[in-house]
């Protein structure tokens, strides 16, 4: 065994050709550093389990950013602390990959804390090897979240103080407190005996990946004699004396037995299938699409449609009165009638409980600005809407308002037709007061003759696919039509 960890595992490169400098056989790590041991244990396990082709390892920022100098499988270096997020992206899209994250303490417990906790909580399919040496290595020996109390570092020159700098963070304990992780263990590489246990833990975490069981976390207490300023041969003792009491070795979670392998994720749909999903049509090509257009007959241009170039509509009311939907209905009918159409909502916090409006433009020409400032048609569900938008009406315009709640006398405006419809009462009769918006659509439609029945059918059936809602809304629509019949027909728009 001792022999084995000294030889170069086959998941290491034969020659470290990527490493700069002359020496292509040793690592770039300092004498006594634990990374080399951890690397070897991982490489050995990957080789022994036959995972070289499937293994993908994420390198952190820190001394081990260069781990790809050594490993002979796929590797990626990612922004500081983000290894679990990047590996999540990899793990999800390659269900066959053996996903390995390798992080130091600054990387994982400081800047990357949110990423490791959330990846663990989601139970991402990955093995995380967390090398804890209680200090930042590469950047110059700064205090890490795992730095021991009173330990001096380049950013805690008076020793880490509990007050203000806190206690060392125990990542195994924190991660074991979540429900999704399958396996959490803390090991060390301070002695051959400890290293044997580390070896077993690393192999177990990788086996969990082979078995597709989920998230495994192995914390490895590891020497950093350079930044600790102790002799390499004293570093093991330093770990045992200083780290063991704070970071207790052991298994913090083991649900391997009771965890089932993850099922394979569903297949990604093909282009043809995606097109069908998005359109309800089975064809993915444009040629067939054109045929569909002429087949379904809904693109019927209304022969009796008034010769109108463009109409600017404002649909307004309280939030919850369905004025956004009303706008969508007008736009859908207009689209079906071969108008160019735009719909623009007012939105934001005011949409919860406040007033809301939507702007719709129907035009025979391509539409520039979708903003409606000068209004041809106003469908108003409440008083504030009338107050706000009446001054913006164009001459020749049409206002239909919900007289169920607007009971004030509406001031006449020159050249503007104003029609009251008791929309909420009619909707209530149709089965649901919330269909008041559709009552106004019926009235508008009847007063202008702008849309064919097919246009309106399309709009209603698209917006209300469920049978019950469809029925109520069709009744409401009819009530709106009926209410204005004979009264104000022939409105210009």
């Amino acid at each position, binding site marked *: 065994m001792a022999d084995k960890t000294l030889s170069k595992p086959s998941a290491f490169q034969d020659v470290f050709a990527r490493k*700069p400098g002359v020496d292509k056989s040793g690592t770039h790590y300092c004498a006594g550093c634990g990374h080399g041991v951890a690397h070897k244990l991982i490489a050995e396990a990957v080789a022994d389990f036959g995972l*070289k*082709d499937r293994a*993908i390892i994420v390198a952190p920022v820190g001394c081990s*950013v*260069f781990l*790809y100098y050594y490993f*002979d499988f*796929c*590797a*990626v*270096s*990612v*922004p500081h602390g*983000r290894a679990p*997020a*990047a590996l*999540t*992206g*990899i*793990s999800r*899209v*390659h269900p066959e*990959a*053996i996903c390995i994250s390798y992080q130091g303490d600054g990387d994982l417990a400081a800047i990357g804390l*949110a*990423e490791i906790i*959330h990846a663990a909580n*989601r139970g991402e399919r990955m093995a995380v090897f967390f090398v804890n040496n209680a200090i930042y290595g590469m950047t110059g020996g700064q205090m890490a979240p795992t730095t021991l109390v009173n330990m001096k570092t380049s950013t805690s020159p008076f020793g880490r103080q509990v007050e203000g700098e806190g206690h060392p963070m125990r990542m195994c304990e924190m991660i074991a407190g979540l429900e999704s992780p399958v396996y959490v263990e803390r090991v060390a590489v301070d002695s051959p005996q400890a290293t044997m246990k580390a070896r077993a833990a690393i192999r177990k975490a990788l086996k969990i990946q082979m078995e597709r069981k989920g998230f495994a976390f192995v914390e490895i207490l590891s020497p950093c004699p350079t930044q600790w300023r102790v002799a390499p041969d004293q570093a093991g003792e330093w770990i045992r004396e200083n780290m063991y009491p704070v970071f207790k070795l052991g298994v913090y979670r083991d649900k391997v037995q009771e965890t089932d392998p993850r099922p394979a*994720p*569903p297949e*990604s749909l*093909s*282009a*043809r299938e*995606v*097109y069908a*999903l*998005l*359109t309800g049509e089975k064809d*993915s090509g*444009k040629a067939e*699409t054109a045929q569909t*257009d002429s087949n379904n007959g*809904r693109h019927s241009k209304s022969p009796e449609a008034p010769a109108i170039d463009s109409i600017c509509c404002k649909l307004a009311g309280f939030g919850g009165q369905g004025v956004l939907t009303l706008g*969508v209905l007008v*736009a859908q009918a207009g*689209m079906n009638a071969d108008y160019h159409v*735009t*719909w*623009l909502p007012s*939105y*934001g916090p005011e949409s919860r409980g406040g007033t809301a409006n939507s702007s719709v433009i129907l035009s025979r020409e*391509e539409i*520039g*600005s*979708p*903003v409606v*400032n000068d209004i041809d048609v106003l469908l108003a569900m409440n008083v504030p809407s009338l107050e706000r938008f009446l001054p913006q009406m164009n001459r020749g315009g049409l206002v239909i308002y919900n007289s169920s709640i607007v009971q004030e006398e509406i001031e006449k405006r020159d050249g503007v037709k104003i029609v009251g419809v008791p929309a909420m009462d009619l909707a209530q009769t149709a089965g649901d007061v919330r269909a008041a918006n559709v009552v106004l659509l019926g009235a508008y439609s009847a007063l202008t003759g702008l849309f064919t029945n097919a246009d309106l059918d399309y709009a209603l059936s*698209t917006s209300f696919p469920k049978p019950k809602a469809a029925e109520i809304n069709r009744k409401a629509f009819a009530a709106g039509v009926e209410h204005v019949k004979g009264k104000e027909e022939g409105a210009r728009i």
Partner: protein
Amino acid sequence: MSKQLMKGNDAVVCGALLAGCRGFFGYPITPASEIAHTAALLFPQAGRIFIQAESEVAAINMVYGASSAGVRSMTASSGPGISLKMEGISYLAASELPSVIVDISRVGPGLGNIYPSQGDYNQVVKGGGHGSYRCIVLSPNSVQEMCDFTMLAFELADRYRIPVFVLSDAYVGQMMEPLDMPAAIDPPGPPDWALTPEAATNGNVITSIFLNPEEMEAHVLHLQENYAGIQRQETRCETYRCEDADLILVGFGIVSRILRSAVDQAREQGLKVGLFRPQTLWPFPETQLLEHVGRVHDFLVVELNNGQLVQDIKLFVAGRSPIHFMNRVGGFVPSPEEVVEKARQILGKDAAAPVREKSSEVSVPK
């Protein structure tokens, strides 16, 4: 029928699915959230990955991972979220990972508000992250283009191994228009540089650290060569009634829609006005713009920010034509009438009516 009335934000999701995007990684933020909502609904149905990341930073790094794995992936956000992604975007550019980032701009700086803005132009176009990198930036102005440019973004990202922005705004994202659903494509499998669980890619490495200055210099110069190729090949713009124009309006996104209306209104009033609309903000269609310099007397740049694109127009035109500027900030957009009035002033015609005070020119910091 294949035409559907749809929000711009939803059209982005359609474009992504049609382009074979395999992973969407996002975080809630108004006014981009519908993209995540619709992706949450449709991606799983299409056997694709949707993850609501724990943060904007995690989201862009999930994209980094999925892209390094050789599949098409994306994220979407707005102002503050885009700022948080800047480190990740610099890394994506440095590692040459194809990826798509959608920015539905809102008003900044800070928390600002959720109305339309173009205050992220400098950030997105000049590089809000560190180092000498570039992203392609596409600027849709309709629901159709929200879909089409998202598809195009994936194509360009793969072709040039580069992050591509779709830079839109709250109006184009929130508005509905008919979408004529484009044909879907099956993208090619992972490229040979990708990390995949197969023997063929064994030992592939993706990194952006080059401690050796010679290697780093070669890498940075290689990136610049790629960018130069993109500048030669991928500029896109639209012009409208520019042929005989005395004044050309310049604007992108929702502003270009307003400018189009302004052109029509101006023409009705006898003012010879045209529209130049960049569809790629980087690379900017400089050559196409410069075709008009000399022949056209003036340019009027209209933006929803403190004057960002206008600096580039000045740089390109290099003093050969007067460049005028008009803006609204805070969430307002100028009306076509206000633009026409400004055009009338520039062209030296009598003013027809007073315009609102705030829409007039403000000082433009450089």
